[in-house]
């Protein structure tokens, strides 16, 4: 694709592209290449010698039960965050799609959490559910629950999932509402004339017509759960207790921070790169489908 009439200049286009190219090559491609290269190396404990070991870092990772647990955990988090925030957002969007008074106000009051940074989300939820001083934690204790996410791994995981889902509701709500408003009203009216009741109308007409939006949001929510939860985890649990909230991204960060195995950390990065490539490819294939829809 190209315009019919263009400017003719040899050097000008390169000058225009130079800033972006420079940053992309220095800060994106070079580090990515480094990560790939390091993932094939084994460095001794003092960093004095390195040996090329082919795929040993990868096979070590795949044999490591800790890594396997982190993979499973990340997918469980993604599923839990996605399902809870998508269903809450869908319910709210369906309600906000009705011809109610003050719908604009409702929308404003529901979309702002998009702008709250993940570490702040972490702090807010930590404060509510902190075992010794959290307001909600007191409620849970009063109900006879032994609530202590600082010691109990499952409760810590639940805390991360709740906080992450809370933040993502606004985003999902916005796109669901846009999707719902894109469905022609005549479709609903026709079904109503046929005598279909509202709940049935939703599942047989609205929901199927929303599938492109749902599919798009699933991809976005998986990306969110994989990558953007880092700030939430870092302020709430730092991966603990006993790694119960350590996701793949958090593991790359903390393994490298301890100055441990550089090769293994690089191999983990490369595996994550693979995951991003697959997710982006799915997202773009879907967008093409949406255009022809």
């Amino acid at each position: 694709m190209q315009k019919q009439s263009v400017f003719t200049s040899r050097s000008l286009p390169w000058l225009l592209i130079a800033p972006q190219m420079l940053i992309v090559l220095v800060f994106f491609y070079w580090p990515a290449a480094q990560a790939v290269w390091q993932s094939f190396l084994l460095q001794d404990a003092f960093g004095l010698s390195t040996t090329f070991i082919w795929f040993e870092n990868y096979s070590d990772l795949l044999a490591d039960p800790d890594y396997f647990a982190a993979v499973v955990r990340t997918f469980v988090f993604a599923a839990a965050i996605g399902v809870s925030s998508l269903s809450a957002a869908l319910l709210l969007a369906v309600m906000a799609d009705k011809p109610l008074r003050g719908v604009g106000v409702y929308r404003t009051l529901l979309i702002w959490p998009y702008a709250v940074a993940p570490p702040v989300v972490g702090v807010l939820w930590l404060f509510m559910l902190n075992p010794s001083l959290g307001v909600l934690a007191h409620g849970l204790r009063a109900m006879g629950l032994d609530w202590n996410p600082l010691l109990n791994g499952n409760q810590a995981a639940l805390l991360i999932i709740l906080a992450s889902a809370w933040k993502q509701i606004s985003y999902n709500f916005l796109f669901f509402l846009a999707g719902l408003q894109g469905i022609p009203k005549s479709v609903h009216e026709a079904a109503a004339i046929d005598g279909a009741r509202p709940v049935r109308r939703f599942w047989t007409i609205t929901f199927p017509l929303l599938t492109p939006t749902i599919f798009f949001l699933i991809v976005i929510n998986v990306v969110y759960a994989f990558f953007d939860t880092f700030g939430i985890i870092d302020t709430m649990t730092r991966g603990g207790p006993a790694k119960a909230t350590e996701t793949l991204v958090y593991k790359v960060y903390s393994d490298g921070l301890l100055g441990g195995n550089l090769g293994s950390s690089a191999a983990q990065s490369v595996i994550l790169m693979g995951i991003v490539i697959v997710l982006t490819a799915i997202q773009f294939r879907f967008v093409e489908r949406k255009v022809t829809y």
Partner: protein
Amino acid sequence: MVENEGIRRYLAHAILWIGIAVVAFPVYLAFIASTQDNAAIANGQMSLLPGGHFIETYYKTLFVGSSGTTREPVGTMLLNSLVMALSIALGKIAISLLSAYAIVFFRFPFRMTVFWIIFITLMLPVEVRIYPTYKIAADLNLLDSYSGLALPLIASATATLLFRQFFMTVPDELMEASRIDGAGPFRFFKDTLLPLSRTNMAALFVILFIYGWNQYLWPLLITTRDDMQTIQIGIRKMIVTSDALTEWPVVMATSILAMLPPVAVVIVMQKLFVRGLVETEK
């Protein structure tokens, strides 16, 4: 049938208000905590109504800093965050405009290669190249500097794609007309293309400002000095592992201050925000 409709409407209002309450509750609690006495909070005796320490806490947070540790006042952090967010947003818009202009309005060898090189960076977020990127920034002497905070995040495949798509829709006649008027590539860019792109730029700015303000992992790696940290990093450092030492009113005041600018942008510029969000996801 009509009665039924009325009940449904009340139900919808009720569900929406419950949703709003759930979404707002954590922030309400944070605000309440920022107006109360630390001792009451630490004892778990926090009241659910505002206390009398509002001015005291916010003054201390902004200009003095929390006392338990020798941290910077939050005023400095706010400034750092603002500089970072603005440089990222404006930088991304500027370099993406230029690249998209070159790709659409010029014909040069490897044009599509260049386009793909920019496009593929979508698949290389900071999270998958944490330590090598840090090492390069360190080698280039960028640690603890504003350029270090902003430069590595300034490349933007999304913005370039968006401007490219928009430029493709600009009719050829406009360019021919301005060429007949004797305008060169610079004047066409400045007098025709930039004014046409204004709404797109504004929508993108809103999204990118929020993106820049809320950065966490990169500033965490690249700042070590207290006077260079952004507000997001400052909050994390205020939480001391043993609860007793954490000054919760100051932490909560900092959280409120950290979310105020981006939330205000979303609410005040809601139309541009929604437009930017929908367009950058394409």
